[in-house]
């Protein structure tokens, strides 16, 4: 009862925030709404007793990823998207229509999906009995998904190195110092 209402409130907020993320003209506004969005989603997860995912959602998404966005926005100190240059051509409009239509179709498909009958053994009660959501997720993560987990760690390492390399300032390209240094090539 109460939870359902809470969900509706959350859902409405999520919808609003999502629209604002896409719709606001100021990137920082978008970022802030994105944080709200993520936070609200974490709330929804928490309501579904997925505490671990909720915490991770906030910790990683809101706490790290969006901070990166904000950083970059500030670093580049971008102007707001100028109105004058927005050219909405006929194909754009057509595509917008198609996109909308796609989602109508998706919605239709979703509605048509029969209720999924196969239910595993991890019911909320079973989870609670096994030692809580975090425990259960941890067990699955470190047994069944051990190798993917390790690979994910390597992926992160690679992404870290890659982003440093990509974003690193090329010394030769620094204005004012035109000496060609064969840097890191």
């Amino acid at each position, binding site marked *: 009862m109460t939870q359902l209402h809470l969900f509706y409130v959350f859902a409405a907020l999520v919808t609003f925030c999502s629209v604002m993320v896409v719709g606001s003209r100021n990137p920082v506004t978008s970022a802030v709404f994105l944080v709200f969005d993520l936070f609200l989603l974490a709330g929804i997860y928490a309501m579904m007793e997925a505490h671990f995912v909720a915490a991770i959602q906030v910790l990683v998404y809101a706490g790290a990823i969006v901070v990166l966005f904000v950083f970059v926005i500030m670093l580049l100190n971008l102007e707001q998207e100028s109105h004058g240059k927005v050219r909405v051509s006929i*194909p*754009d409009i057509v*595509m917008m229509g*198609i996109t909308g*239509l*796609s989602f109508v179709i*998706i919605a*239709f*498909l979703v509605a048509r999906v029969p209720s999924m009958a196969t239910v595993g053994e991890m019911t909320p009660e079973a989870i609670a009995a096994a030692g809580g959501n975090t425990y259960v997720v941890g067990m699955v993560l470190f047994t069944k998904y051990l190798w993917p987990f390790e690979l994910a760690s390597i992926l992160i390492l690679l992404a870290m190195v890659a982003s440093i390399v990509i974003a690193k300032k090329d010394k030769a390209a620094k204005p004012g110092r035109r000496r060609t240094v064969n840097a890191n090539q």
Partner: protein
Amino acid sequence: MLLWLVILFPLLGAALNGLLLRKVSKTVSHIVGASALIASFACALTAYMQMMSAGGEGQVIFGFDWLEAGGFKAPFQFILDRLSGMMMLIITGIGSLIHIYAGGYMHEEKATWRFFSYLNLFVFMMLLLVLGDNLLIMFIGWEGVGLCSYLLIGYWYEDDANAAAGMKAFLVNRIGDIGFLIGVFLCFKFFGTVSFSELKDIIINGNALTGPQLEAVSWITLALFIGACGKSAQLPLYVWLPDAMAGPTPVSALIHAATMVTAGIYMMTRLNFLYFLAPDTQMIVASVGAATALFAATIAIVQNDIKKVLAYSTVSQLGYMVLACGVGAYAGGVFHLFTHACFKALLFLGAGSVIVAMHHKQDMQEMGGLRKYMPITHAVMLVGVLAIIGFPGLAGFFSKDEILWKAWIGGGPVIWGMGAMAAVCTAFYMTRLLMLTFYGPNRSDHHTREHLHETSAVMWAPLVVLAILSAVVGYLNVPHVIPGLPHLLFEHYLSPIIHVPAAAAEHWPHLTATYSHSLELGLMGISVLGMFLSAGFAIVLYKNGPSPTAIKLKKSFSGIHKVLTNKYYVDEFYFKYIVDPLKDMSLFLWKIVDTVIIDGIVNGIGQAFMLVAGLTSFRMSGSLHRHAMVVMLGIFCLLTILLF
């Protein structure tokens, strides 16, 4: 075991000289090279004696399984019988003499390790060729001697002409080798073996040959004969041999006179049972031999380069041997091979001495009167010349007349006539050589004349040995018509090797028939007379250098002279009608087919794609959103399909 030593000594010498002794003095090179050969000769002699004392039966010495694939089997094994034993002795014996001589000849070279290494390697290859029990081992030697010949002709590689001559020799030989290879293939296809002894078993002792096999024999023998043409410098593949004189003279003596070029004759003799089975091939062989003998002899008449004369003479003499094989007189052919090895080596080495004395000038027009400067050389050369022109009593007389006689009974008057003409020409040009070189006034320049002197003992001692050999070996095969001497020793010696298959006996009646002595004597008389006449004519013309008559003759027959001087334009012909078109075609293939057509098609396909891509990408604005929209469109289509 001894046989292995025979083979391994030269290889060892080659390896020592070629790989290890690069920095040592040339004396060491010489000693190593020559002693390897002498040791080899000693072993060869012992092995030969053992074989002969055991009754002279052929023995097969197994080495190891060399090449086996599918049904094909070629063990590394040797055959030692009367034929190969004799060849082995010639190679190592004459080889030893020439090695000793070479030390003197190469005296002025800076480093001779390369020379002796190649020379030893050559002997090794030649021994493989001779001793191999199957066609494949023989082929190793066959190509191996070609390689050494290539390397030795190009010994003074800094002169581009020498390198070219070496290459020419190798390539022309290769043409022949391909014929040889095809012979091997055919042999395997129809007889399933390439071993001499097995082949012999099949043909002599086995069942009657089937039709296709009989037919194949003609082709096999013909193909192998092409190989022989290449190696033994027969028409039309003789062109490499004169050019091969670019190499050092001992090389010319050993390789291009005494041993390698006789490989073809050896091979045909080895396979005589096959050749007997193919009378058509034999006809061709005889014709080619006779034609070569005459053809080369005519060219030799007008050559001025002392080595070129000898080279064409060699071609001509090889023609004789081939002719002998062609008419079934294998013993005669091999005997001539033997005698020729002796006197031609002698002649070449003598010429080499002259060349050394003349400071590497080879033009006979600048020589003359060397008799008084080089008496020993003159004496041995005289013996050699007399031997080659068939002066009665010397080696050449016996061997050549034997061949001419067999040509008459086996090949008919035309073949005999060509042979006899060649003999007459030989007498003329050899006498001319002798006269121009050793008699008359000395025509060389002052500087050269001052330094003219007899060569060192290391050079003339082998010459003397060879001269003695040239004088006496003829008596090994005295024809029936000459009374008072043991007759036809050599032919008897070789008779276990020569087999006329029963199936082929009808084609070779003259081998067994008896002929009147008077005919033989008459023919001999004619050829000896011709020889004397032409030799006398040459003496008259060139006694004191080229006489006015000679010059007048040259003028009045200038057309023929020009043709002869230019060797019938054979080289030019080959270049113009074979090599150049091939080059043009290659250029066409590369520049047009490869670059334009094939690459054009490939690039065309690529460009076609580019064109299509260009056509379809006109809406590709590069905008991220456009791309995303296309993705979206795809999703939309998928969804529509899913939905309906």
